[in-house]
Structure formats: structure tokens, C-alpha cells
């Protein structure tokens, strides 16, 4: 029954789309977990001394690189198949 409804190509594309979603989603959750501590520390430091604004922001966005990796993987998945 399923064979009749979904072609092989559509099934692979569907799996790739799920993979792409997971890559971005999980990377986002990981980055969020990493940023929660760094962000809180950065806000604390900036509240005491505005001079930490640049450094605080820089450190806060470092875990964002993980999301970029996830995004790259998702693009590969979406456009390679």
C-alpha cells in the first residue's frame, strides 16, 4: 500500500528534509544550552561594567557557530538530493 503511495525519490527527499530539520533544531538547542550560561555571565559582567559589552557579546555568540554547522548540513541535505 505504502509502496503505491510514495515513490523512492519522495521517500529519500522526505528523510533528507527531516534530517535537515534535526540538524538545525538540535544544533539550536545545543547552542542555546551553551549560550544560557555564557549569556547570563555576560549580562552580569555588563551590568557592572559597560566595557564588557563587546567581549560579552562576542563570547555569547560563539556557540552560534554550532548552528551554522547545522545549517550547512541542512543545506547539503536539502540540495544534494
Amino acid at each position, binding site marked *: 500500500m505504502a509502496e503505491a503511495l510514495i515513490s523512492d525519490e519522495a521517500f529519500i527527499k522526505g528523510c533528507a528534509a527531516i534530517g535537515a530539520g534535526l540538524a538545525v533544531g538540535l544544533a539550536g538547542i545545543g547552542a542555546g544550552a551553551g549560550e544560557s550560561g555564557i549569556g*547570563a555571565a555576560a*549580562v552580569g559582567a555588563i*551590568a557592572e561594567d559597560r566595557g*564588557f559589552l563587546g567581549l560579552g557579546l562576542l563570547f555569547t555568540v560563539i556557540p552560534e557557530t554550532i548552528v551554522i554547522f547545522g545549517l550547512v548540513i541542512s543545506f547539503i541535505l536539502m540540495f544534494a538530493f
Partner: protein
Amino acid sequence: MLIGKNATWAYLVARTKVMKRKLIPKDEYRKLLNMEFNEIVRYLEETEYKKEIDEFGYKYSGPKLMDYALSLNLSRTYQKIIRISFGLAKDLITSYLKKWEIMNLVSIIRGKAANIPPDEIEEAIVPVERDLDYYRALIAKDVDEIVNTYRGTPYFETLSKMGTIPPNQLEDELFKTYYLELTKLKPAELSLKLFVDFVKMEVDLRNLKTILRLKAEGATPDEIISRLIPNGFELTMDECRKLATMSWSELVKALEGYWFWKDIEKVEEELSATEVLFDKAWIEAIAKRATSYPLSILPVMHYMVLKKVEVDNLRILGWGKWYNMSNEEIERQMVIV
């Protein structure tokens, strides 16, 4: 859940670390020691103490100005730490700073006993976890009413002994109750355990100083034991009992294995000089533990201790300079870490 917990500590610890950067660096004390009193006050006006010195400048002068400005700054710093903390950290910090309520209570009781005018008693108050209005209301009451204010608290039983026991014993009992309240906390989680250990180390230090001072004065073991605080970190009551019964030379030898015995060659004739070394060892031990547990209450406690030490150092420096003490003598009394 774990993520949120870390973020709570990260915020508070980062904030106190930045506050710690504003403390007077170790090297600056050498410069301060070579300054005259007025130069020191001018130096402080360029630091975190400016606001308080300006506030009191119209009213006081000399070391009294410095004294009140330092106390006010300390009280504001501690109030700020309470204000910026939340959750478990707030509870722990507030309960630790309850010490200031006891100190203020002792000042009020002493002031009342010596018939000192309310205004002057008020000047000696360092409001931390309770505001000045609370203490103003206490000062306006008579001694019995003050005791009744504490009905239902752990301090009531001790306070109700007022008049029947000597004032210094009453103070000791109040602090004993304070430390017992803190050290009996059940360390259900790591932060709480680190806090309890920190308090226990403070108890060790107090007991150590009590033992040494009373031994030097020739007090009997029973007298010494009666003034000690239970629940120490390494100096448990059994250990203290053993130490109290030893002769001076045995006592000094026995102290060598404990955590506070660091860079100490011998116990000096002048006990205050050795006490400074013990204080330094204590602060270093806290710093070391705070480095091992960066996301905990310890970095905050470390900062609070350093702030108090800075205020005490500046006070010693100010009064020492005012009375023309030698730089060496002043430096010997200061805890420079």
C-alpha cells in the same frame, strides 16, 4: 534544569568577579602606606568610596570620616549583593549576612547599657540585610522590648539571659547561636555543602583565635571550651577539647597539621600578627576552593570576605596614619592578600 542552574550562578559570579576587579590591588597598599592621612583620603575619593566620603564630608573629618564612609560603603556593597542575587544564593547570602544584624544588636545593647544617645548608637549601625529604619525602631525601644522583638527566633533564648550573664558572654552566645544555625543546614546539594564548609572554616578560625588568646592569658581548659563554637570544619569540639588541655608548646605543635597552618613558622609573641597569617591562609583556602567550584556560592563569599578585609585594612591604615604609627607596624596589622 541543569542549564538554568548554571546560568543563575554564572550571572552572580560574573557580577561579583567584576566587582572584585574594583577592589584595591595588593600592590597599591605599598603606595598607600607611604602616603599621609589626607593623601589617603584623597586617593579614596578617586575610588569606589568617593560617594560615601562626599556624603559624610560635611559632617565628619579625620579618621572618623573615613570610618563612617568605609562602613557605609561596605553596607551598600553587601546590600547590593543581596539585591542582585536570587533563589538559593539569596537565601545563603542573607543568612550569612545575618552576622551584621547580631553585630548591630550588640552595638545597640552596649550603647543602651552605656546610656549613649540614640543618634550616636545609630552611627555605629551597619545595616545590611535589614534597613536602617528597623534598627532605628530597635534603638527607640528599651532593652526588654528589644528582647521581645526577637521572640520566636533562635536568638530569643540567649537574649532573654541579658542582665544575668556578663555582656561579653552574651555576645559570644549570640554568635554561637548564629553559627549553629548556619552549620546545622543539611547540605542537600553541592552549593549548600560548599557554603556550610565555608562557614565551618570560619568557625575554625574563630575557635583557633579564641583558644590561642585564652591560652596566652592563662585561662583554664573549661573556660576555653565554654567559649568555643561547635561544628567546626577540622576543629571539631573533640579536637578543640584536646587542644584546650594542651600546654602552649604542645598546642602550637598540634596546630601544624590543620588547613590554616600555611606559611606559618611559629606563633609570634604578639598574637595579632599570627592571626593575620591565619586570616591570609583562610582567604587563600577560600580562593582555592572558589577556583575549584567557579559556578557556586564560593566566588561570591570570597568577594564578600575580600571586601570586608579591604575595609578593615583601610581602617587600620587610616587610624595608624592618624596616630603616626610606623609603616611596618601598620603593615603587620593589615591582611594584604
